């Protein structure tokens, strides 16, 4: 089940947007305008775009601190997202959440999580809610190879399986959890092996191939909408940059990174496919320039926005802000 050329162009655009967006964030981080830690998903954009194309706006997404690409692909407003990076009141979380907690309920984007595996139990409930309401809505959660070793992951996958909720567990296996290679954290060759422990269907996908990713997620979505329960997708990929800005990456060889960059950059791979289908280089450049323009606009919007007033501190804690 491949993508049409139009769809592939759409995916290409979403990937370009994610990359341009994160590169802009990096720049702003170096200027001290983005605070906290910045975790980029450069090299993993196909996983995000392939997934988003398989979903509806009303479907739900829970991602994590490395979730910019996921949320952008799912349709979060680049302006609101960039304003959030700069802590502005126009940000998607009014500047309260920052890079790690992007939310846009109008696009089904629940608050992203900064606790490794923190979103996995939550997705079970989010998926169950739709099922109880008789909707055919699905809920997707992204997590990493490292997150697979958290207790919450185990509990959530077991619950999803016994309750047959329409959830899709996408494990982005980028071979590292922070600075630790996967060989030190699991004996599994493939993390998809973990799904069998709950008799949950699982697939392994080359997540640098946006078409393959889209196909895998689409199959899972179909199963979920039919009421057949959750799916585990091991999305094999690679992070081409450090875990966070400032990561010296001494734990892996430059050659390894270079090889992935040269051979497996998902944006290049998608571009090559488009070229092979007769799309011109100029068209690709235009898509990419469009993404750049969107990011520039977002950055300008964000910079021009105000910081939240300090009175905002007491808002959004409780419904009536009945603080003690």
């Amino acid at each position, binding site marked *: 089940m491949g993508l049409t050329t139009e769809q592939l162009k759409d995916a290409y655009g979403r990937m370009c947007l994610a990359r341009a967006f994160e590169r802009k964030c990096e720049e702003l981080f170096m200027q001290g305008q983005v605070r906290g830690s910045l975790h980029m998903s450069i090299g993993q954009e196909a996983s995000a775009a392939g997934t988003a194309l398989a979903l509806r706006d009303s479907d*739900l997404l829970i991602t994590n601190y490395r979730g910019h690409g996921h949320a952008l692909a799912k349709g979060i407003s680049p302006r609101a997202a960039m304003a959030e990076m700069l802590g502005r009141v126009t*940000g*998607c*979380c*009014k*500047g*309260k*959440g920052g890079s790690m*907690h992007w*939310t*846009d*309920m109008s696009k089904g984007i*629940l*608050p992203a*999580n900064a*606790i490794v595996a*923190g979103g*996995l*139990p*939550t*997705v*079970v*409930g*989010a*998926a*169950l*809610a*739709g099922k*109880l*309401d008789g909707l055919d809505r699905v*809920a997707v959660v992204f997590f990493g190879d490292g997150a697979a070793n958290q*207790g*919450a992951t185990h*509990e*959530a996958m*077991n*619950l999803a399986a*016994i*309750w047959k909720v329409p959830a899709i567990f996408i494990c982005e296996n980028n071979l590292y959890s922070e600075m630790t290679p996967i060989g030190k954290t699991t004996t599994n060759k493939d993390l998809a092996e973990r799904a069998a422990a709950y008799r949950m269907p699982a697939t392994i996908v080359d997540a640098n191939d946006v078409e393959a990713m889209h196909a895998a997620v689409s199959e899972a979505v179909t199963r979920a909408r039919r009421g057949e329960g959750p799916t585990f997708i091991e999305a094999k990929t690679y992070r081409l940059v450090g875990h966070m800005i400032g990561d010296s990456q001494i734990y892996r060889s430059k050659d390894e990174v270079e090889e992935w960059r040269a051979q497996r950059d998902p944006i290049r791979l998608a571009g090559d496919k488009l070229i092979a289908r007769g799309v011109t280089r100029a068209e690709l450049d235009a898509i990419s320039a469009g993404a750049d323009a969107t990011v520039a606009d977002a950055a300008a919007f964000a910079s021009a926005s105000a910081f939240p007033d300090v009175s905002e501190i007491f*808002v*959004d*804690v*409780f*419904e009536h802000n*009945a*603080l*003690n």
Partner: protein
Amino acid sequence: MRELTYAQALREALTEEMERDPNILLMGEDIGVYGGVFKVTEGLMARFGEERVRETPISESGFIGAAVGLAMMGKHPMAELMFMDFAWVAADQIFNQACKMRQMSGGQVKVPLVIRTQQGGGRGNAAQHSQCLEAHFAHIPGIKIALPSTPSDAKGLLKQAFREQDPVVVIEHKLLYNTKGDVAEQMDPILFGKANIVRPGRDVTIISYSRTVLHCLEAATTLAAQGVDAEVIDLRTIMPLDMDTVLASIRKTNRAVVAHEAHRNAGFGAEIAARIMEQGFQHLDAPVERVGALDVPIAYSLPLESATLPSPDKIVAAARRAMRMEA
């Protein structure tokens, strides 16, 4: 008025609330067919079905987290945590997730989640099954905390918990389930943040909540025989905290004792004492006295457990200290 047990009153609250709001659903270990180990949910699965009364595996992180997801998507779940001591296996989902989602999302989501649990010692359940942990909840912004001491309060506060649009923990006490008391047939929810003066008095203010209120009343009776007229305040909720009632009382008595079953060190009594000092210093004729469990793990053996936990006698002694009377 009828007499109900605390457990019956809780069950009545759940039943009425579930009838009222179809979005309410219950989750927890053994809560269905068996009706929960303390029998609070007895009969509810038969009445409301397996979807709304959901038995879970032993996965507190998993199902409390799932309840957070349900709450964010429009349901009003109640998750039963069988013993408060197990809060720690689910603590991330409570403190990092439920408490923070509204704020982190800039108000885009809310988490109307009720956690029901029970705590406390007195039954010889030893160190891992006897703790009182309300102070941990109080320290983390984003969750409201109710600790009913009577069947009537149990019903009213639990009903209110389902009217809140934020996470609430309703902390019961394992030794209260079989206590009896009058409970009105028709009962409004009891608003959070309104303390209850359960015994008016002039000489000393005794502030408490949950089962320890019963100890305080017993202590007040003893004190009365000694010529001390104690006012006993049941806070009912500690978040929000009704300092107005506390301070009004202290303006009258000029002396205070705070009593709870939780460990004394860094217990919520310290917060109450500190606030009394901050807000009522000029009215205090003596330091606020604190009574709580000794700061040691709670032992199994009866004499050790009894000596570790607070008792009416210890509250009497504290009130006498506050009165500058001889021990």
